[in-house]
């Protein structure tokens, strides 16, 4: 069995499972953000009722709002707080960061466990060696909250092996975007995707993070990087310290293998209307942008702010561009302060926002008028997600975002003079 199968077998009390089996398994962590938490808690209260079986295994994170703009939003958050207090679940209130980054930094995600959540990017926690799957509100309200369990169909596993060395100036984010283009949106529906190969093994934890993150765009159920010393060192540095278990595959299983040489990858931009609509930066360079943002599930990492500071050294944000910086967690904001990045980027003309998920879905910020365009590290670019359906969202790596903020048009950071 591989890692996913082992976790599902253990959690469902079976000796073994096979792809296609439907099992009911015990869940270690349910994560919900301010919106899904609201909808789920309402379904739970109205249609299910009773006690939350394991409140310590449930976390609500307010990340779409860092400071609610309307009375309605405030009422929603207050209803969530009241629910969290009443049921005894974890509450990470406004300003704690993006949901996925915040629960990792808080030490709530443990390797070898099962993580579920409404947010479609929940599979990202496969980066820590957890089985992480996005479920719907009715699974959460109907079985996870009252019983601590959920149903799962055991997925087939596809192994994606990345070899080679990318071109200079090409980041892990570029490779991840490029892969969505190569494999295609919905290319691996229902599969578990294992990322492996020398390229992945060489990456630091927060760069590996970007790969399980993209699996939703491939249509996959979950994704993981088999835990190794990089994982162990990272997890040991989180609040509760080293975990008591890791699950690892036995090897020798017969997965489909897709092998890619990342040596040909150059900086990428995902253009509207979908994440799979990729272009090499030089092919779309020159398109005007009025907004740039580092933030969201895929951005707001320390790595992103360092990259932006390197691009902006001796330069300024273009007068026609608003450059938003949204740390993914309080930990990252503090580190950025200590490294002097907060001041350096502020003085270069960028604006810092509280740790949150930033402009994702434009709840607290990031609405655009018809005809406006943003380039960002976000994970989604569907029209209408950021204000007007006639506004454009481009997705890219931090250096490309920063370089575009300098020039006011989509720009290849490698050629910035």
């Amino acid at each position, binding site marked *: 069995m591989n890692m996913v199968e082992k976790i599902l077998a253990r959690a469902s009390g079976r000796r073994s499972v096979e792809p296609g089996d439907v099992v009911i398994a015990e869940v270690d962590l349910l994560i919900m953000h301010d919106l899904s938490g609201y909808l789920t808690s309402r379904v739970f209260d109205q249609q299910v009722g009773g006690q939350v079986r394991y409140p310590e295994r449930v976390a609500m994170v307010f990340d779409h709002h860092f400071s609610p703009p309307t009375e309605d939003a405030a009422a929603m958050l207050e209803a969530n707080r009241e629910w969290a207090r009443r049921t005894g679940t974890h509450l990470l209130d406004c300003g704690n960061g993006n949901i996925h980054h915040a629960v990792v930094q808080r030490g709530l995600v443990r390797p070898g466990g099962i993580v579920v959540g409404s947010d479609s990017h929940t599979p990202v926690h496969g980066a820590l060696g957890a089985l992480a799957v996005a479920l719907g509100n009715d699974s959460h309200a109907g*079985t996870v909250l009252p019983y601590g369990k959920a149903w799962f169909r055991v997925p087939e596993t596809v192994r994606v092996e990345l070899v080679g060395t990318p071109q200079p100036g090409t980041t892990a984010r570029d490779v991840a975007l490029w892969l969505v283009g190569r494999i295609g949106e919905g290319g691996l529906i229902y599969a578990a995707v294992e990322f492996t190969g020398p390229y992945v093994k060489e990456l630091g934890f927060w760069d590996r993070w970007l790969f399980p993150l993209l699996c939703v765009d491939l249509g996959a159920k979950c994704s993981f990087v088999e835990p190794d010393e990089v994982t162990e060192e990272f997890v040991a540095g989180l609040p509760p310290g080293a975990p008591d278990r890791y699950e690892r595959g036995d090897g020798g299983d017969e997965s489909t293998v897709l092998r890619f040489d990342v040596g040909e990858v150059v900086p990428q931009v995902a253009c509207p209307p979908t994440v*799979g609509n990729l272009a090499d930066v030089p092919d779309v360079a020159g398109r005007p942008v009025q907004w740039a943002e580092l933030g969201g599930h895929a951005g707001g990492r320390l790595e992103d702010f360092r990259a932006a500071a390197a691009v902006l050294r001796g330069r300024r944000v273009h007068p026609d561009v608003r450059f938003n910086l949204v740390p993914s967690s309080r930990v990252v904001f503090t580190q950025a302060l200590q490294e002097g990045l907060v001041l350096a980027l502020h003085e270069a003309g960028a604006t810092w926002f509280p740790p949150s998920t930033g402009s994702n879905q434009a709840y607290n910020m990031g609405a655009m008028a018809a005809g406006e365009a943003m380039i960002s590290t976000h994970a989604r670019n569907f029209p209408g997600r950021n204000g007007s359906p006639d506004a454009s969202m481009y997705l890219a790596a931090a250096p490309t975002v920063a370089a575009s903020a300098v020039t006011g048009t989509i720009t290849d950071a490698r050629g910035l003079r």
Partner: protein
Amino acid sequence: MRARGRCWTFGDNIPTDRLVKTKYVVEPMEVIVQHVLEDLNPRFPVEVAAGDVVVAGKHFGQSSGRAIAVKALRATGIGCVVAETFARTFYRNAFEVGLPVLELPGVTDLVSDGDVLSVDVAAGLFRNETTGVQREVPPADAFLLDMLEAGGLIALAKARPELFADQVR
């Protein structure tokens, strides 16, 4: 689990964001239902009738796993969604909230907008009554069909708590 009605066609990779726009997510269902898929076909929320069939391309319902998008589609009264492939969160949510769905590769070549279709999800049967074309696919897992039959996951868990409560399955 049977539907018969007018065919409404949509393309590939339709995200849940376009089924229900973010700004409507917390509105009451009576409001949401008036805006389902409006960006892609403004006539749809106005003219859709009970039993109608939505036919889509690949990876239908990608993006946010919001069950509200599926609930809104169900609330329009449609009888079934048939797609080449579904995004898995959408597929899962559909069974959990009791909206019949059928995965049928090649379906987009079998229909035109406005055709009359009949679908039997439990049997895996699809028929275009306008053209007479018929297809059959293996039905979904029995557990999923049980869920659909019960009216969704919450109803199933209420009817059969032993599935979740006591020993693991």
